């Protein structure tokens, strides 16, 4: 494996989903002995190109070359046979088995029908020695740290003679020290001549590791940068493109000082460290930051769905209850991150899904007033334009946008005083998105506090009146509606101070 030779090259890769082009003329090139970073916003096409290289998706056009030859990769086995391995975010290890057993699972060495444990162990030991990993081949995976498990995944890939190892956000569940260990491992792999495609949202990791960086935007490659060209400003600008500043609506709402939420010195495990802020009625407070920066835990603690380790949460001067039901009666509402898992009840009708949080108003002595309930749901369907306009339709059958309208409508129909939104528009089509923003603005106008966690930079900078950006469990910078730009928010989320933001 000589260095600098091209390992994998794609030429003019084209891919559509339901008539929507998600990849257009993608020409990616990875060499032996290089760590090649791939960056781009959510939806830029990073995971789609990886899935095409590894045979999970079929491409609609273009070619993949490995070692200069055109190859057909139709499934994971094909990819493996070509020396391409992926380390998934969700690890694919079996917890009850040992390191050796995991590495050889599905490709065991056998001798007369029996497992050659010794041979397998020795081969793992040799591999560990070659890359100088610190890991016991006989340790049960269940007892390993996340970083060690990642090493096992890498070993598993190497045992299959992987030339190209693709890592998708490998540090998202690692601590700083563990990440550093992983980076050392990656350095070792590069030394030995393997090619690494490293997908990450974190700029600091990309500086630390990569030889080259490919930036994607809207399904295209917009730039390939050499190590010397990589700097935060360039990269974020490339990722976001030109910002249409003029189209932004002015906020200019009055604050309702009699409806406020105070969070004081909140801490939660390793994810939240001494977080304090105050939010007032009438404002949409955006919370930015990378996945794993503690955003979700923050809103869950406020809502009562997670129990903080320390600190205080006060709503209009009174401590917030630990019980969700009580908080809902106080006027709280939460639109959770993954609506399918946490948001709605798929088999149940639109009516039941909307009314389920409002039985305190739709019932007396535990008896539901069915007529009230129906009217409640019909009103919500009308007011929030949920389609189809059939209250008996199971929510599972609705489009993603309408499902989100159901979850949001559940709270909006209660006139909440504090609405917490976690990634409210993921998987929602453009038309419905505009509706959702409209509802949020109207609600804010009526005096409610809205706290919105989002990874969508456009949404964050355009909808929020104020943005707090989190980094490593703390608030890092604060932006106002007027001085926030997508680039600066992204920079702050990566831990780079900006001119526009106010450091916290």
């Amino acid at each position, binding site marked *: 494996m000589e260095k600098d030779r091209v390992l994998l090259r794609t030429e003019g890769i084209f891919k559509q989903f339901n008539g929507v082009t998600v990849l257009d003329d993608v020409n990616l090139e990875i060499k032996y002995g290089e760590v090649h970073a791939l960056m781009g916003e959510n939806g830029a096409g990073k995971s789609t190109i990886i899935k095409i290289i590894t045979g999970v998706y079929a491409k609609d056009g273009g070619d993949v070359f490995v070692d200069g030859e055109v190859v057909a990769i139709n499934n994971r086995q094909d990819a493996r046979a070509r020396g391409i391995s992926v380390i998934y975010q969700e*690890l*694919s*290890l*079996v*917890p*009850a*088995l040992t390191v050796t*057993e*995991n590495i050889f*699972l*599905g*490709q*065991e060495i*056998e001798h007369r*029908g*029996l*497992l050659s*444990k010794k041979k397998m162990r020795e081969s793992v030991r040799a591999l560990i020695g070659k890359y100088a990993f610190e890991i016991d081949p006989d340790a049960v995976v*269940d*007892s390993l*740290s996340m970083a060690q498990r990642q090493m096992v995944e890498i070993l598993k890939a190497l045992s299959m003679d992987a030339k190209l190892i693709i890592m998708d956000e490998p540090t998202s569940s690692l601590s700083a020290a563990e990440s550093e260990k992983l980076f050392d491992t990656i350095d070792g792999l590069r030394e030995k001549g393997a090619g690494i495609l490293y997908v990450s949202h974190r700029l600091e990791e990309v500086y630390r590791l990569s030889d080259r960086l490919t930036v994607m935007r809207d399904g295209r490659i917009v730039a390939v940068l050499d190590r010397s060209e990589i700097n935060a400003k360039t990269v974020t600008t490339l990722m976001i493109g030109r910002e249409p500043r003029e189209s932004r609506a002015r906020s200019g709402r009055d604050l309702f000082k009699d409806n406020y939420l105070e969070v004081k010195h909140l801490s939660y495990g390793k994810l939240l460290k001494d977080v304090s802020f105050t939010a007032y009625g009438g404002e949409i407070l955006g919370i930015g930051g990378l996945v794993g920066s503690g955003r979700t835990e923050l809103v869950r603690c406020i809502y009562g769905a997670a129990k903080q380790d320390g600190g205080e949460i006060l709503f209009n001067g009174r401590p917030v209850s630990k019980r969700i039901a009580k908080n809902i009666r106080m006027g709280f509402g939460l639109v959770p991150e993954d609506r399918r898992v946490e948001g709605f009840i798929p088999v149940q009708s639109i009516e039941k899904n909307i009314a389920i949080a409002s039985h305190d108003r739709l019932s007396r002595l535990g008896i539901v007033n069915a007529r009230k309930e129906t009217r409640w749901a019909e009103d919500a369907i009308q007011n929030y334009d949920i389609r189809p306009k059939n209250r008996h339709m199971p929510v599972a059958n609705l489009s993603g946008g309408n499902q989100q309208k159901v979850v949001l409508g559940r709270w909006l129909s209660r006139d909440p005083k504090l609405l917490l939104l976690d990634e409210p528009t993921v998987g929602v089509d453009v038309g419905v998105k505009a509706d959702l923003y409209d509802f949020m603005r109207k609600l804010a106008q009526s005096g409610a506090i809205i706290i919105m966690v989002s990874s969508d930079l456009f949404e964050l900078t355009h909808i929020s009146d104020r943005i707090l950006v989190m980094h490593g469990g703390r608030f890092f910078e604060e932006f106002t509606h007027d001085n926030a730009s997508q680039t600066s928010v992204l920079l702050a989320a990566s831990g780079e101070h900006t001119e526009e933001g106010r450091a916290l």
Partner: protein
Amino acid sequence: MKFKIRNKTVRRLVSIGLVIALALFFALSTEAFLSPRNLFLLLKDSAYLGLIALGVSIVIIGGGIDLSGGGIVCVVGILTSRLTFTGLPGIVILAGGVILGAVCGAANGFLIAAVHLTEFVATLATGFVFTGMGLLFAYRSNGRISGNLISKSITNKSFLAMGKHINGLYYITIVWVAMSVLSHFVMVRTKFGLHTYAMGSHEKSAEMSGVNVARQKALGFVISGACAGLASVMVVANMGASAASLGTGYEFQAIAACVVGGLVLGGGKGDTIGAFIGSIFMLLVLNGLYKFNLPTYWQYIFQGAIIIIATAFDAQFAKFAQKRRAAESAARTAA
């Protein structure tokens, strides 16, 4: 000095400790307990349950559950007792019984791996079906389905010989021990065993790594059925007749034996040796109830309580093990 005990070992010591404590208690309180005859009988009865539990334990390790064991024992027992009157040599009938059990297991495997039915509902229902089939084939006083069941004494000598003993040690005990050793070897040293553990511990990961989950599941049920079939033939040979009530409740006792022995419902934990120890424990309890002249209904209460206590204990034990690991890794980072 470093002194390290694995959690697995701790759990094993708990179940062995239970057996020893119980045995000691009986040895001290009843005179006849330590007599060789009583011990051999105890081992014979344990073997009957133990063989069924052995098969069930493989299904449990793979993350499943098999509630049809009793039904398989019933149908195999009745059919083999009929077969003895054809005059076939005992060993052929034995093979036939094991194959019939395996076929029943294969039916379970098909329903679960190919039709994708929930394991406990499917095997609960097939348990009914197998029991009913057994009764369909049972001898009746007037030949009609509605006639009274009768049992006929088996006269086939070569078949009855399998139920005998040498110097007090019953053949079924020898078969049980041999099967336990063999199955432990298979579970630890072969791909089949490794894949079963992998599937039980994390089905999705195992599948991604190339484990054929459907085949693995089906095989587990086939083995479980074959073990139940073997147990059934051996016990019929020992009793010299089969009864319609044969096998009743054994699916449940087998699960109790497994959970006492440290097999965790849900899969991936424990081993077939655990089923071995658990079976002895169960028989000690039943034996003890008998020795102390406690009414038979106590066995139902004990069995139910044992399952609940053992499962609840394992839930707590898992928490404890987690804590221990966390403490260990904290100590490692500190060092």
